């Protein structure tokens, strides 16, 4: 239906260009996932189910926003610590707030400050000590694991304040949950940040050609640090939202986002080499990944088979857009 409409409106050449657009491609994949899901389990593509998918995808979407920024900045930029930082953020908010609404703001600011400091350490390591990002953020996973252990004594206490749970889970406007609205705000902010601000321009400049960025007067190292701080702040925010959803913190609540956030970025058409892509693709990528996960649950295959199918679908998704250029040109 959508496709025929598209064909009517655009020239054949334009259609091809449109199909090369990763965001369009991801949207088509999303459509295919919902249609095939609906064939297997009627109701999979219903409005309620779609809204519910968005609700869960919001956490990945927010965390992957930081990942997008770091990857766009190039220089093999990648942040493997986002999952652990998000987990740390859930622990901090739960403990500082002790489940009391009036302490929520304090808890939120504390979590952002602590996680921002971790991002600062990542950035300093990458920009000034010149440690490869993959390794620096990987090492940071170990450190943050230790920090969580010290901070919580191995058993995180406290729980999500009722206000936070309400903000994340409440149904507002058309059955859409609070987490989706928060995500929409974050997404709009991120797209504005990347497209309309000096910082955003610099991110793309760093990713496209670091040498040229340096020669045109951009303070490469300081901006690199900012990338990693931003990534940690997004991860912290994602963690806070996840806490509102889960109700209580644990020492590995958000760890799974470590690598899946990278997958969301790549499926959304941002290249790991940096400089090309944007947040819109990542956001669609996050929804695609969450829909895929739901589909696997609906299919009701045993855990072993689910893992295999998960991997295979991921490979197929990556082959649609995550491909690199041929060596022979």
């Amino acid at each position, binding site marked *: 239906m959508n496709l025929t409409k598209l064909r009517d409106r655009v020239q054949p050449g334009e259609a091809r260009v449109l199909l090369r657009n990763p965001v369009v491609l991801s949207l088509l994949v999303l459509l295919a996932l919902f249609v095939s899901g609906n064939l297997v389990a009627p109701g999979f593509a219903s409005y309620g189910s779609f809204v519910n998918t968005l609700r869960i995808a919001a956490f990945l979407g927010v965390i992957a926003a930081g990942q997008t920024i770091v990857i766009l900045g190039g220089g*093999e930029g*990648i942040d*493997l610590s986002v999952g652990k930082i998000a987990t740390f953020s859930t622990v901090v908010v739960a403990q500082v707030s002790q489940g009391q609404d009036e302490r929520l703001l304090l808890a939120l600011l504390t979590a952002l400050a602590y996680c921002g400091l971790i991002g600062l350490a990542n950035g300093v*390591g990458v920009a000034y*000590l*010149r*440690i*490869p990002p*993959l*390794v*620096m953020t*990987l*090492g*940071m*996973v*170990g*450190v*943050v*694991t*230790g*920090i969580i*252990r*010290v901070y919580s*004594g*191995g058993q995180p206490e406290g729980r999500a304040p009722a206000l936070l749970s309400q903000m994340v889970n409440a149904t507002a406007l058309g059955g859409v949950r609070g987490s989706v609205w928060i995500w929409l705000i974050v997404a709009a902010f991120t797209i504005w940040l990347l497209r309309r601000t000096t910082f955003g321009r610099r991110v793309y400049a760093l990713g496209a050609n670091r040498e040229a960025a*340096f020669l045109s007067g951009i303070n*490469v190292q300081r901006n690199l640090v900012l990338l990693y701080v931003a990534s940690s702040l997004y991860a912290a925010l994602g963690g806070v939202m996840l806490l509102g959803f889960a109700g209580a913190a644990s020492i590995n609540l958000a760890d799974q986002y470590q*690598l899946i956030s*990278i*997958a969301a970025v*790549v499926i959304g058409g941002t*290249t*790991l080499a940096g400089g090309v892509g944007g947040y819109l693709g990542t956001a669609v990528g996050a929804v695609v990944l969450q829909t895929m996960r739901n589909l696997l649950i609906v299919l009701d295959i045993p*855990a*072993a*088979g*689910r*893992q*295999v*199918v*998960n*991997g*295979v679908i*991921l*490979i197929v998704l*990556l*082959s649609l857009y*995550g*491909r*690199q*250029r*041929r*060596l*022979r040109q």
Partner: protein
Amino acid sequence: MSAPERSSTSTLLDDARTWLLQGRLPVTTAIVLLLATLVVNLVVADNFLTAFNIRSIFANVIPLAAVAVGQTVIVLGRGIDLSLGVIATLSSVVTVSVVETRGLTAALLTGLATGAACGLVNGLLVAVVRLQPIVATFATSFVWSGLALYVLPPGTAAAPRMPDVVVQGYRGAFLGIPNAAWLLALIGASWLVLKRTRLLRHVYAVGGDEHAAFATGVRVGRVQVMTYVVGGTYAAFASFAMLANSGSADALAGGGLTLASIAALVIGGTRLSGGAGGAGGTIIGVLVLQLLTSVLVALRPPTDVRQLIDGLLVILALALAGLWAGRRRGR
């Protein structure tokens, strides 16, 4: 009498300097780190030099060493394999499931074939389908772990076990040297042999500059595929050590090896962007990581801070190793 002596020391210095500048600096850092951790261990751990302790250090180090050497080959060719630890898991559950019916030799061969086959798939995805290695191998890691769960569901009542001779042999000693140390030497020797092959020369060429390698007639794609096959085979070798160390297999073990292997090769001075480094340094890096852990075990810090100290020490080691790598590359 004094004049020639002075000149000989100065040539010695010159030699040392050229040796360092030939890209040996990262490995030197790794050796210094190894010596430092050794000395600290000798000071803080009373039982460090006991036969039991040395034996268990070597026994624990083999799986990571094998995976890390495999990872090094892949990284040298400008790739990375995030599924290597899970390949080791898959290979171990496959090996242990056939060992009782088919016998040890056939089981080991099946395990090796499993590792190589997984590597082949990864290699084809990276070199032929041209997916980005980080995400492609992350995706296949789901496939391998799903297959491992299928072959040996966790909680199986009568889980198959390795023959006792393997388990005892792994902990035993030959000529007064622990068998696991011999195995480590074997891994090192396999690298020395591999390094002299045409494949590895091509791997270094591809890692250094793939366009130049392509232009000079190196079959870049085929070389890249082969690095993943070699990596998978080393992962299979790691799985044998895991099996021999614990006697049975666990479909959920092994995942942690992947990221540790990357840390080890960076500490060992291999450049993540490919083309520079080697598995000798990686093995040193693995030993450094293991010795850091044993320092912590000996110091018995409060359990809560142990993980934090461990993380900080690892990041410190990574930073020291990364410092040189970064310097050489310039800004």
